[in-house]
């Protein structure tokens, strides 16, 4: 069965990719994912904010009380205040690259323009074969217009593309007034691919502590509809790669996304929920589905139900009006 796939200009042995999650931060898991048939792995995101916070915390703690009392002018060996975060991430990229043959993608969530560029360069330097930009941005300032937000996204992609030579994918949320146009803008800015869609942390309220608490539920199969819609609309237009993300629970969702035109299908929630071994179930499920239809290559079905290829392209538009 030929599951070979091209994504971001890279050859993958399978269209199923382990999305960024804590699981992909462990090299043992990455090895197992490859063994289970994953086509590639996206490492957990490097968060500029987290790095900064770590740096500041370590600076604060390693200097607390120093140069104050004659007998104890410091409290830690100098190594305690070493640089944090970025080198650690680079080390993970390096270890992952040497552990497996499949491509390793870095993932980046920065907050400053300089951060996007510097850390992207650092990830490239560490040996990542592509970078996924985790564009997690909530425009909390009500005076910020949609156009400005879009420009921000475009600017980030452009800046990173100018800084690195490896392929760059943009992972987005769905909240744009004109998703299709936005996708086009990002491709125009240089993005080699889009990952649809990102899911955001949304705060909840802890009633016992009377405080806000960050919250992110694992996705469920019912969440595939929106990404499926946009993958279907954008597929086959030749602008760049498309990765589907969200709601991949079983091989059924994998097949649906591929039919809609995704180049690759990413999953994190299912792996977290069922363990790394679930990758095998997804890959085998895909093979079984193809075999049951006497198909021996993936290309035969990829995008066969995208809007451009669909027998009834208007089905995508009318979806909202159909009575369920």
């Amino acid at each position: 069965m030929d599951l070979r796939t091209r994504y971001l200009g890279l050859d993958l042995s399978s269209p199923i990719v382990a999305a960024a999650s804590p699981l992909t931060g462990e090299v043992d898991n990455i090895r197992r994912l490859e063994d289970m048939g994953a086509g590639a792995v996206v490492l957990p995101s490097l968060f500029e904010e987290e790095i900064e916070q770590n740096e500041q915390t370590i600076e604060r703690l390693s200097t607390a009380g120093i140069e104050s009392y004659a007998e104890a002018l410091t409290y830690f060996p100098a190594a305690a205040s070493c640089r944090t975060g970025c080198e650690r991430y680079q080390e993970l990229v390096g270890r992952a690259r040497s552990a497996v043959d499949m491509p390793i993608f870095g993932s980046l969530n920065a907050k400053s323009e300089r951060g996007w560029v510097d850390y992207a360069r650092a990830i490239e330097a560490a040996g990542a074969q592509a970078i996924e930009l985790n564009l997690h941005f909530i425009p909390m300032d009500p005076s910020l217009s949609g156009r400005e937000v879009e420009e921000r996204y475009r600017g980030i992609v452009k800046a990173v593309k100018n800084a690195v030579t490896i392929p760059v994918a943009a992972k987005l949320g769905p909240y744009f007034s004109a998703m299709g146009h936005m996708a086009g803008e990002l491709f125009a800015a240089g993005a080699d691919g889009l990952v649809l869609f990102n899911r955001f942390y949304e705060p909840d309220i802890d009633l016992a502590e009377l405080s806000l608490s960050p919250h992110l539920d694992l996705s469920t199969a019912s969440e595939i509809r929106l990404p499926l819609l946009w993958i279907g609309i954008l597929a086959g237009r030749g602008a760049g790669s498309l990765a589907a993300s969200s709601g991949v629970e079983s091989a059924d969702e994998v097949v649906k996304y591929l039919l809609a035109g995704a180049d690759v299908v990413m999953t994190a929630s299912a792996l977290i929920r069922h363990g790394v071994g679930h990758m095998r179930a997804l890959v085998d499920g895909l093979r079984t589905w193809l075999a049951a239809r006497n198909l021996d290559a993936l290309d035969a079905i990829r995008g066969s139900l995208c809007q451009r290829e669909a027998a009834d392209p208007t089905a995508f538009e009318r979806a909202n009006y159909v009575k369920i």
Partner: protein
Amino acid sequence: MDGNTAVAHVAYRINEVCAIFPITPSSPMAELADEWAAAGIRNIWGNIPVIQQMQSEGGAAGALHGALQAGALTTTFTASQGLLLMIPNMFKIAGELTASVFHVAARSVATQGLSIFGDHSDVMATRSTGFALFSSGSVQEAHDAALIAEVATLKSRVPFLHFFDGFRTSHEVNTLSLLSDSDLRAMIDDALVRAHRARALNPEHPFIRGTSQNPDTFFQGRESVNPFYRAVPEIVQKAMDDFAALAGRRYRLFDYEGAADAERVLVLMGSGAETARETAAALRQKGEKVGVVQVRLFRPFSAAHFLDALPATCQSLAVLEQTKEPGAPGEPLYLDLVAALADAFSCGRRAGMPKVIGGRYGLSSKDFNPAMAKAVFDELKKPEPKRSFTVGIIDDVCGTSLDLDPSYAIERDDVVRALFYGLGADGTVGANKNSVKIIAEQAGFYAQGYFVYDSHKSGAQTLSHLRFGPQPIHSPYLIGSANFVACHHFPFLLRQDILRLAAPGATFLLNSPYGPHQVWNRLPRSVQRQIIEKRLRFFVIDASRVAREVGLKNRTNTVLQTAFFAISGVLPRDEAIAEIKNSIRKTYGAKGEKVVQQNFKAVDDTLSRLYEVKVPLVPTSGFDRPPPVPANAPKFVREVTAMMLEGRGDEIPVSLLPVDGTFPSGTAAWEKRDIADEVPLWRPELCIQCGACSFVCPHSVIRAKYYDEGRLQNAPAAFKSAPVNARGYPEVRYSLAFYIEDCTGCGVCIEACPAKSPAEPGVKAINLEAKAQMLEAERANLAFFEELPVNDRARVDFANVRGVQFLEPLFEFSGACAGCGETPYLKLLSQLFGDRMMVANATGCSSIYGANLPVTPWSRNHEGRGPAWSNSLFEDAAEFGLGFRLAADKHLDLARERLKSLSRDIGEDAVDAILKAPQIQESEIRAQRARVAELKGKLLRMAERDEKARDLLSVVDHLVRRSIWIVGGDGWAYDIGYGGLDHVLSTGRNVNILVLDTEVYSNTGGQASKATPLGAIAKFAAAGKRVARKDLALQAIAYGNVYVAQIAMGANPQQTLQAFREAEAYEGPSLILAYSHCIAHGFDLRYGMKQQDLATASGYWPLFRYNPAMRRVGENPFRLDSPRPTIPLRDYAYNELRYHALALAHPSEAEKLLIEAQAAVVEKYKTYEALASRQNGGQAARRPASSRAARPLLMNGRERHGP
């Protein structure tokens, strides 16, 4: 570079083994060696030296001796008591003619008090060991001497002790020309290294060394080494000459500098020689015929070289020494010189005998400045100079001191002299070290930095003395007249005379919350007057605000450093700013870009927020600096303590100081340090009166009382109270009071408070609030609270945390770190047993915050009773405390005997009642106190006529049960004092040992001990500790008759309380291991108690009590008080930098160690569970006791309890 680093740089590179143990001020040398080894830095032979920490300096000396005998080039670093512990091995090493160099940052030996500061008393105690004693007097000299000593020891086989002045040289930062590896290679002869190895023990060609010798041969054997010692002076001089040829810096065994026809000469060792030389040069310019001999090789003493160095014209000679030998005819160098001169004169080698006087200076880093050197030169002019004088103090008892002209100064005009008053940990010292570095790196500039710290670990004042100039700076003394003064903490203006040392026309920089137009009227009148009279240029900047705004919180270092460069003119402004930014990049680059950018912004913002203040013509303020202590303070506090508090301790004359180191208790209460910006504010309506806040308060600033509501009639309007929440006391009120001027604002109490407002999220029954607004009202509230009666100890329920809050703490307001994890235990101890307690305290954090002058936190209760506290040494606290017990037991026996013999006079019933009184419950203690008080009354009436009554009176206090506590940290208990501790446990005597276990040597800055956990980093374990901590509890339990408890107040305060009470009640030895969070763990100590809870929840620190008395009632003595682990070790450990840092630096290694540590936790818990489920005395095994179901105390009956 400082002296310690300069020495370590050489010692590390020319040795193969370093045996180390921390002791101030030498610790940084060992720490650097450990860090360099961990970083893989190699010595000149291309290998990484082995750095081995030992359990004590005695152990280090033993390991060093062994390594030497096995042929390795071996060194060590030490000082003071540490050096003394090495003495037995030093005799052996020298007796066996073994080449080695010890590097000693010379420090006072503890006598009437401990001192961490510098003098030569430690080195002088080693005179008879056979080591060559080799002195250096500056950072550069120390660096060079480290190499010369190594060359000389290899050539001569005589071991060398290279010493330099603790702090003055070890911690002074100065311009240094660093010796390269090739310089070292050129000086070290590998043939001598191989000869050293060839002399090693080797089974291939065996021999015996270390025989036991008898009267027939020992003496001759001692004399056999003489040729080696006679050769040393020439060998050293040759090494010095070779060194001069290589490096261009020339030294001699006795370096003379001065007039060729000098008539008056000073002889001294160490850094004081630089001061003396500078002074002599200044005097020579005025035509005086003076000179200075600096002694470098003190032992073996070469009279010939000394006589050669001394000008023949010398008529009078003063020998200055940094040591004191009470009862001796003179200090050691004086005696040597007198003997050399007398010998030369009597043998005709010298025509005349100059007048020789000896004197002492600089004990414990007392400053030795040109005025003092001049006073000595002047003394030599007198026909009858003082023979055994002192200089630098006022000796109004024996009149030994020389009079000084304090205005005498010889500072060069081209030297910028800057003083910086900083608040500990605000970054001032770090910034100044950085400024020295920046300037020293400029071509044609030289720089010097010396830093003075006060006695406190929190809210301390630092004073930086910086000199910059176009010539090398040889002025190892404090700045007496500064042309730049910076005060980095505004409140200092109200505590000290900050401008006292400002020279006329100097620049004054003030970190002020008030702008250039508001600040003037906020200055005390005396400050205004000095600014006007001295015509100071006055600048202000709100550095705290600038730092805060760029995200640097309270780290004002970059801001104030920039301000200094901007207005001092040391370097051209733009050049200076560029250099600061370069330096920021270097310093913070490794810590991340964000930190770098924040500091860059701080630099830029400083320049636009720095203002010169237009100084009015006359003072305008109506207020001035208040006296350091109030008028109602005790006489000693007013006359002595106050001087120290004002920074004028140097002016205290001998007569005002106690002759035997005995100081009054409880003087910390008179020092209002006022260091917290935010302090707790009570919300009585939310409070559940649980006592948790006062229980955990590290500085004893929270007090509780209950009282009759009628007493509120005269209360201040703002005084808060609530009905006591106990049933049956309708007219009783409850109040909490806060000593907010003593509070450090650590917030531990806030985190401990369980009472949350349901309506206001985040609000508790106590909350941190800005102090400024509440200060006046709270002072009045506190004054009223102090007038309320102290609650009767006999009516307070000692058995629970809630009750303990009503007991007077007799350990209060110490200078411990804000949020200290040790002090709450000591406070609790003082509350429970303080009025009948003796404390033997091991040296360490607890002895420092417990008794570091100016003030003493161990105090007295309202009846005048309180803990009797003393510190002997670091290593002997257990033995010292056992001595307390032996004496107490002896005197109790004596008192009982005498009492029995007087029973006819006293009354048999009364005697019987005293002798048979139970004394476990507090009510029983109170009853016994009443009996003994009555007995004392009778005895006083009988005393005049009855010898036995007088005798009984001298020991009668022992009839009240005395509580002996031995207190120390894990460095003492696990390492240096372990042998003694173990022995004391084995005696079965009734002593209580409290180990404040921070798992590192906290006091010396966080070096690893055997209590340091697996996987944590610490100094001396920079790559992470590789073995699990020692289980001291299990070792003690193995005795079977020792009460052992492991406690963590934050995990279970009730169990802590119970353990303290059981241990004290147990008639035998007790050992309590108390988890003590520490600044060296690397987390915000506000959450210290929470972190303790996590330590227990993870199973890392299980709580248990082993009470041998339980066996008597057929119960298992081992009670496990904490449940099985509920969280993984990671969730506890990675909250702390000591673990987390390793995970960041070496993730895989850290992960491996964490897995091992987790496995060790699981295994250990199983061991404890097995102990807890053991059957005993036919009783069924019990499950681990829950915290609430803990067993009752071994006490008879219930106490009467108040609310």
